[in-house]
């Protein structure tokens, strides 16, 4: 697949941050009984996406800063209400927002989602070359972590996933990243453009301040449909997905257990319990 950009411009860094509007994990989250799709009424910007946005803002600030022509575009795919996540990202510091919204997208699995995002990024790339696509380590609703790898594979871009440190060389051409595996830590290098997913260990995300909230009102959010991208609706949604959910059932609630207050022998009682459960 064609590269988004042959070489890196010295002048401006153009970063896309993929964000998702997800059901707030503080409340009970539900799947609809018929479609098995997520109830998205109490939704927020996915917490894990804030790390990707912070990484983008930090890179932009380190390479030119406020006086540069750098862009950090918050991009989301989702129903009309998902624009709230884009607006939050603009308040935190993204320079512009893009919202792909189309009823045909409902029910997309990771493969179909990555297909839509790949075409969307190519579309945005025809206007402003894209240097870097940043994402969180997972969405806090679907939790598959598949989209960054699938997007990189579809676009033929360098894939640096689950990184916990990220920097860009002085000349803006080489990305350096650290990936902490279970048994070893890898130091990675790649040329731009690239797709990078970041863990929650990479930084401390900033909060929107009053100035940011005011500034966000003047920032532009572009809403696009599949027709704007020239993308066949059959390639996304349930018809474009390679997996299907057969049924979904709430997990049976755990029966209430025995709770004791320690009066001096609770440690012994614990061992008695483990012995009775044959867990010793």
């Amino acid at each position, binding site marked *: 697949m064609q590269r988004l950009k042959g070489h890196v411009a010295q002048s401006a860094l153009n970063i896309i941050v993929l964000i998702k509007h997800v*059901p707030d994990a*503080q409340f*009970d*989250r539900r*799947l609809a009984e018929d479609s098995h799709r997520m109830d998205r009424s109490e939704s927020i910007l996915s917490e894990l996406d804030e790390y990707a946005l912070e990484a983008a803002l930090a890179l932009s600030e380190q390479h030119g800063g406020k006086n540069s022509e750098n862009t950090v575009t918050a991009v989301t795919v989702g129903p009309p209400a998902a624009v709230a996540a884009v607006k939050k990202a603009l308040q935190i510091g993204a320079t512009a927002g893009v919202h792909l919204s189309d009823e045909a997208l409902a029910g997309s*699995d990771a493969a179909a989602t*990555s297909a839509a995002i790949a075409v969307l990024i190519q579309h945005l790339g025809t206007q402003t070359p894209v240097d870097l696509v940043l994402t969180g380590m997972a969405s*806090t*609703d*679907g*939790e*598959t*972590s*598949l989209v*960054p*790898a*699938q997007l*990189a*594979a579809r676009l*033929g*871009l360098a*894939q*640096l*996933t689950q990184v916990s440190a990220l920097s860009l060389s002085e000349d803006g051409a080489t990305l350096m990243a650290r990936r*902490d*595996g*279970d*048994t*070893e*830590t*890898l*130091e*990675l*290098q*790649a*040329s731009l453009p*690239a797709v990078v997913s970041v*863990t929650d260990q990479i930084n401390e995300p900033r909060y929107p301040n009053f100035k940011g909230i005011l500034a966000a009102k003047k920032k532009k959010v572009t809403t696009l449909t599949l027709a704007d991208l020239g993308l066949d609706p059959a390639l996304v949604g349930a018809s474009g997905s*390679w*997996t*299907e*959910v057969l049924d*979904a059932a709430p*997990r049976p609630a*755990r*029966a209430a*257990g025995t*709770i*004791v*207050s*320690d009066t001096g022998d*609770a*440690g012994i009682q*614990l*061992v008695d*319990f*483990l*012995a009775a*459960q044959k*867990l010793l």
Partner: protein
Amino acid sequence: MATILLFLDRTGTAAGSPLSKVSEELLTLAHTAGEPVVALAGPSDDSLLEQLGRHGVSRVLVSEQPELNDYLLAPKADFLAHMVISTGACAVLLENSADGKDLAGRLGIALSAGVITDVVGLDSELVAEKSVLAGEYNVRARVTTATAILTVKANIVDVVAAETPVTAAVETVEVPFDAASQQVRIVQRSPRAVSGRPALEDARVVVAGGRGLDGDFGPVEQLADALGAAVGASRAATDAGWIDHAFQVGQTGKTVSPQLYISVGISGAIQQKAGMQTSKVIVAINNDEDSPVFEIADFGIVGDLFEVLPQATAEILRRRA
């Protein structure tokens, strides 16, 4: 019988490593459901082949091409894609780790094949069970394409050998790698410290500590060692720097489903609950009787962990003596 492909990664610092418990579980699933074939990145050896033979693996497709070692993951996905095509495998089983999910995602695009992650059960028709929304729902899902790619959680089957052991034969293969797969160079590898305790995701028993430990993991480690358990931690404990992030259990850390999970000084908010609520038996020790963890505990103790844990550890050692 249907061919099921498994992947063993022995590149980098993993060269010569023994078969992990998770790999043995995947082999058990594979030889129960079909005919397992192993794709091995990195060197083979006799002890590995002997173990694979006991799991009914007669074909081991080995590549030691340097690209597998030099670049991050993408060449391994290319290797697997070629092995699926050459073996005609109907399914690929991978670990549910960061590496496993990344490989699954890329492989899915290379083969136009559906991917299901976080699998906790699998039937002979390759219908997968998975728990979603932090364990709140159980979902049954299937792949609608010719090849199914599944990342499978640890501890979902007991390891058993194949009914008839076979001799595992090595076939050395060389595959072409896509130029796009050779863009992310590994410039340095550093092994991470090993504890000598079982790996968190594989362990039958996990003892996890949180904010209530106030920086002192000693009582948790001593109980864990008495039980032969892995040590885990809440996000509060890893964020405080009391223990490495690799030990974090929760939504942004590891998801574990051991036979026994002992939660120590952890309130049990959603972040933590997401990582452990599918454990078979949950024991909670916390000095705050209103902690949410008591809502999901089979056995709870409201008390001072610095009294309760040493007493329990001493009692276990006494009964074993």
